[in-house]
Each structure stands twice: as structure tokens, then as C-alpha cells.
């Protein structure tokens, strides 16, 4: 049974890594946040997969539900920030967000 844990771990790690690569390479603010969402998918898969293979599916389920609620909050805040940034700078380029430095 434990073998399947690594199976889920593998896919979760792939998702998280894809998200991080996206964060490093993409420049559009919305795209960056989509990359964050991909990481979040990897994490929820990891949580539930772990619960599934360890026979703790019910606990894992509650964790995932809570995690999704947190995610919604975060998405709302982040997108509100992005819209505000767009209103101020008329741009979604993360490279232009470099006024604070030093």
C-alpha cells in the first residue's frame, strides 16, 4: 500500500515544480498567479493522496476542504491586488514592478 504514496508524491512534486518554473519564467501577473494555483493543486493532491494511501481519507478530506477555502481567500486578495496594480500602472508586467529596491 505504501508504494502508492510515492505514486502520488511523484505527481504532486511534478505539479509543484511546474508551478515554480512558471513563477520563475513567466512575466504576466495573472500568469504568475495561475502558476501559484498549479502549486496549490499539487499540494491538495499531496494531502489527499497521503490520506488515501494511509487510510486517513476523512481527515485528509477535511484538510483539503479547508485548504480550498483558504485558496479562495488568497485568490480574491491576489486578484484584487492585480486589478489595483493594473489601474495604477496600466501594465501587467512583473518586471515593471521593481520600484522598490536596494
Amino acid at each position, binding site marked *: 500500500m*505504501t*508504494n502508492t*504514496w*510515492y505514486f502520488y508524491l*511523484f*505527481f504532486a*512534486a*511534478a*505539479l509543484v*515544480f*511546474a508551478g515554480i*518554473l512558471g513563477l520563475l*519564467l*513567466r*512575466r*504576466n501577473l*495573472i*500568469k504568475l498567479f*495561475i502558476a501559484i*494555483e*498549479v502549486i496549490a*493543486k499539487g499540494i*491538495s*493532491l499531496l494531502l*489527499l*493522496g497521503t*490520506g*488515501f494511501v494511509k*487510510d*486517513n*481519507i*476523512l*481527515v*485528509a*478530506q*477535511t*484538510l*483539503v*476542504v*479547508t485548504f*480550498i*477555502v*483558504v*485558496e*479562495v*481567500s*488568497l*485568490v*480574491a*486578495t491576489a*486578484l*484584487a*491586488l*492585480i*486589478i*489595483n496594480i*493594473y489601474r495604477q500602472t496600466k*501594465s*501587467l*508586467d512583473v518586471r515593471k514592478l521593481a520600484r522598490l529596491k536596494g
Partner: protein
Amino acid sequence: MIVQTALLIGLVLFSVLAILLRDLLKSAISLAAASLLLGIIFFRMNAPYAGVFEISVVAGLITVLFILTIALTKAGDEVRESRAANWVFPLFFIAFIIIDALVMKGLLRKIPALASGAETGTFGDVLWKGRTFDLVGQIAVILAGVFAVLALFRKRDKHD
């Protein structure tokens, strides 16, 4: 098991697509598709509530929020993504997949784990009797999100 694997591969593919696609709307939709697949995977793992949440909230609500944002910021000029990303991303990703597979294979049976007893009861029991504090946290995080959005979209009558 094969179906599950196929679903997982699809999930990864759609997620990668969501990052790689140039058009924002398309990548938001492929993210939604990935969420849908994840929801189905959850269903197949005997986690119906998580599946429902994933499909309705993440594939539904969050996608709507993304599309709304994309619409609100549409007037701006397109961001020039770096060209390097087109080949760097697949290269690194494939390399990582290989490392990932090797590590997971190597780790097999190396990590000791406690065998856990089977759970009893229903989802409701676990939620209410096991993890009630999370509910307080959920309320708090929803309040935080609501207030954050209110604060960020308030009329700036006095400042600036």
C-alpha cells in the same frame, strides 16, 4: 489504477498547458480543466466532499474570478513573455520529471511510516468532532479575504 494514472497525467498536462499557453483566457480555462480532473480523482479516492469542493469552488468560482480579472485588465497591452521560456520550461520540466521518478523509486520503502488504524464515522463526524478548530480558522480566513477585498476596492476619498 490505470484510469487513475491517466487522470493524473491529464492533470499534469493541463496544468503545464495552463502555464505555457500564451493566451490568458485559454490558460485560465485549461486550469479549470485541470481542476475538474483533480475533482474526479478525488471522487475516485472516496473523497466526495473534497471532489465537490474542488469542482464547484476551484474549477467554478476561482475560474470565474480569473476570467473577471482578465476581462477587467484586457485594455492593457500584452506582456511580452520571454522567448527563452518556451524551451527552458520543457527542458527543465522533463529533467525534473526524470529526477522525480528516480528519487521516488529510490525512496521506495526507505521512509518508515506508522501503520494507521482505519477510520470510522463519516465526513461530518470527522469535521465536527475531529477538526472543529479548522472551522474557526475557515471563518477567520473568509473574514480576512472579504475585508481584504473591501479594503482594496474602497473609494479612495481621502488618501492620495
